């Protein structure tokens, strides 16, 4: 009689057949994705708007040549900008040609990929507001620090 009792809990879960497990896994993924889908569409709409409204010529116009101020401006512009990192390298290369310091350009390209103001609402909704805010602030400061360290080390090793 002992064997006839239906199993429950962990034992029951372990007895799930492979198709049942696959269905459960797909259901879980679909539920997660359905929750996040409106946010993804929203952030893509926001990025598209930024890409259309902010011309690439804008990036060159905001640097003043100030050694202290420019890296902060670079990190700030990189944080607000959106798009493929390739674009940041191309703009960065052009900025260097126009005489903008390597320090400012490095902060710009570092912030472009590590800080996301446009993605901040989406990041906050999915990963938590506190986490998103702290992560982006620290990444902004890191972009400036990475720029300073890269420029200093370059000058020290290959003057």
């Amino acid at each position, binding site marked *: 009689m002992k064997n006839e009792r239906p199993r429950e809990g962990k034992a029951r879960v372990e007895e799930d057949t492979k198709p049942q497990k696959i269905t459960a896994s*797909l259901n879980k993924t679909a539920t997660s994705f359905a929750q996040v889908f409106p946010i993804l569409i*929203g952030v893509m*709409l926001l990025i598209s708007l930024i890409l259309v409204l902010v011309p690439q010529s804008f990036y060159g116009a905001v640097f003043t040549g100030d050694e202290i101020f420019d890296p902060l401006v670079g990190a700030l512009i990189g944080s607000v900008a959106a798009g493929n990192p390739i674009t940041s390298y191309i703009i960065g290369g052009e900025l260097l040609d126009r005489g903008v310091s390597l320090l400012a350009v490095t902060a710009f390209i570092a912030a472009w990929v590590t800080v996301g103001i446009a993605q901040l609402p989406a990041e906050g909704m999915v*990963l938590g507001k506190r986490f998103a805010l*702290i*992560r982006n602030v620290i990444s902004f400061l890191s972009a400036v620090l990475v720029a300073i360290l890269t420029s200093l080390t370059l000058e020290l090793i290959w003057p």
Partner: protein
Amino acid sequence: MTIRNPTAKHFLALLTAIYLGLAAVDFDIFLRAISVFTKLLSNVLPILALVLLIMSLLNLKIKPRIAKRMLGKGSGLKGWTFAVVGGILSSGPVYVWYPLLADLREEGMRDSLVAAFMYARAIKIPMIPLLVYYFGWNFTLLFTLYLLIFSVLNGLLVERLTER
């Protein structure tokens, strides 16, 4: 993953309203933005499909206790390696990876590793030749090295500050 859906819907509704306003004010800019959005969406869809596949496989194969062992508090060097290498290898925009990160975090992934994954995405192996072309080998080497170091430092600091 727990998201307050009304917030997500409000976010989308706000952007839809902005687009409708834009269409009324300047239809040409509206069309350009829609065209950029369509291109962005078509670029993102294959990566999104990859993320969904990874999420399904993880849900199927990796039990929460295994995820916790690999990426949780006691994961140590192995956890950091998974996060940093995963970040470097992950392609596409960062927001595509949010659902996967949220799922893994719900199963025990440390905040520090989530932050490290997101920071390490700054290192783009396929784009290194372009970086070398514009900035030279020496710069590329140092820049990549510092990004790698800062992905770990960022992770540690974010976890310290997000702890309640």
